[in-house]
């Protein structure tokens, strides 16, 4: 069983976003980077699945600049077997070109199962996993909050969370791509021996430009900007009954939302 995990490095959720002077992107100085939270669930689910099946290999794939190696090492310290860093070399890419490059590596590696996060919390595109599934010809189950390997170990039952607290239950054969949602598991911490061992695990480096082929970006993001600040509004005063009555009146007559 060969399991691939797609991992992305993103700014910490505490980051206060600042925009570059020319509006071409966000200011990256001083940003602390973390493993995208949803990708952490993906690493954990891959490790659990390998343990359940009893044999196999977990490979962490990540595309990004040199610093991206940190998130691969984190995955290796958690217990993954090897890593592949695809260096973007500073070229500008969109969801499609990222997916095209990842799909190429995935096809070369011939994975039986792919885990990824349901989305990255930086650009929030939520496009790459489904595009990878299309380009590498995998079926997909996104926003999965439960994954259980079937008795025959050739497939799994997967719960996909949809609107209003409802779940769709899928029965899938491998290979399949699973996009992990919060709640699917609790990621393990890397142990100290795990961190030491990770240093000697194999980590290959590929270059995105060598894998791009004819693929070109299909979208360009421009005019990065901060949202208008929400202005402070009215603070109501008085007794609770009075404030409740006034609020209801304002929502109906001034804001007109009731």
């Amino acid at each position, binding site marked *: 069983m060969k399991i691939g995990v797609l991992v992305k490095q993103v700014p910490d959720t505490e980051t206060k976003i600042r925009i570059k002077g020319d509006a071409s992107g966000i200011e990256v100085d001083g940003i602390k980077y973390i493993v995208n939270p949803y990708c952490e669930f993906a690493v954990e689910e891959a490790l659990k699945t390998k343990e359940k099946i009893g044999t196999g290999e977990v490979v962490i794939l990540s595309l990004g600049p040199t610093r991206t190696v940190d998130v691969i090492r984190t995955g290796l310290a958690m217990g993954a077997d090897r890593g592949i860093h695809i260096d973007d070399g500073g070229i500008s890419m969109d969801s499609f070109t990222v997916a095209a490059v990842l799909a190429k590596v995935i096809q070369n590696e011939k994975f039986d199962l792919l885990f990824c996060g349901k989305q990255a919390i930086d650009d*929030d595109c939520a496009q790459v996993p489904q595009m990878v*599934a299309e380009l590498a010809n995998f079926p*997909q189950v996104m926003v999965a909050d439960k994954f259980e390997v079937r008795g025959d170990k050739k497939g799994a039952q997967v719960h996909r969370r949809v609107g209003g*607290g409802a779940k769709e239950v899928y029965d899938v054969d491998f290979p399949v791509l699973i996009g992990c949602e919060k709640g699917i598991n609790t990621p393990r911490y890397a142990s100290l021996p795990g961190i030491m061992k990770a240093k000697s695990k194999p980590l290959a480096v590929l270059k995105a430009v060598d894998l791009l082929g004819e693929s070109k970006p299909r979208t360009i993001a421009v005019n990065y900007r901060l*949202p208008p600040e929400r202005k402070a509004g*009215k603070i109501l005063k008085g007794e609770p009954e009075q404030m409740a009555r006034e*609020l*209801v009146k304002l929502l109906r007559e001034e*804001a007109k939302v009731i």
Partner: protein
Amino acid sequence: MGNILVIGEHHEGKVKKVTFELVSKAAELAATLGGEVDAVLVGHGLQNPEELGSYGAKKIYVVDTPKLEKYNTEGTVKVISEIATEVKPSVILGTASSLGKDFFPRLAARLGAGLATDCTDLKIQDGKLLATRPIYAGKAFVDVKFETEIQMATARPNSFQPKVTQAGAKAEVVSKAIDPGALRAVMKEIVKGQSDKVDLTEASIIVSGGRAMKNAENFKILQELADVLGATVGASRAAVDSGYAPHDMQVGQTGKVVNPNLYIACGISGAIQHLAGMRTSKVVVAINKDPEAPLLQKADYGIVGDLFQIVPLLTQEFKKILAE
């Protein structure tokens, strides 16, 4: 030709509000592009698709098959990509719902189209689509330009107003018998949630509770207020992490990003991740004991006080005026 194809959504055969919103916006864009708006509906037992005509749609391509009674990603992609290849729209629009989020990227990859997801605004600039979308859960915004012939976007629910522009007009319904092909990841069943409420991401009113709710039991008072308003109940990460509410109720950067007309925050201080997740709400009400709570500074209306006193009073007051 600058035709726009809207991929509609339905609930048990009934066309959803988000689709009326999207067709209305598409009609506005099509007027600038000089094309027409058509729509696609896929599923089984679809009712009254011609109603989209009064919102500006001309033709509705309907694929009604028991094979797609339960949603299937690859079946949906195959059917829509065949229609798109035949009718050659220059823009394809969908909804950033659990469905649209699932199949649009795959459809875009198949059609060789650029895609902007979860957009809060769409316009036409120099004959091309320009899509505005939040990033970092709303801490910043970008505009997306397209390099492809077909331009695709999904819009966040509640971003546009449904507008009847041609009252009584009926769209032409074109039935398409397209085989969804061999289905791989197959859905066996749908397990319904505890409530039949509109999902947070589509709700037009949300009542949310934070750590100050103290326990799961107390969320009952928010539910009572929500029931009166036809609202959906949400929660902050602090409340979810404390076990007061399940994760699918979480609003914020690692939960749901919401876009309601009215957001009522009860006992939520307003961490940066929470503010990001509800920033595009049209009107925000904050109720908090702590006058220094950051959310009180960002709210349109703030009440400094005990939510356990205020919320039941609000429920009573709303009941009164809604009964009038």
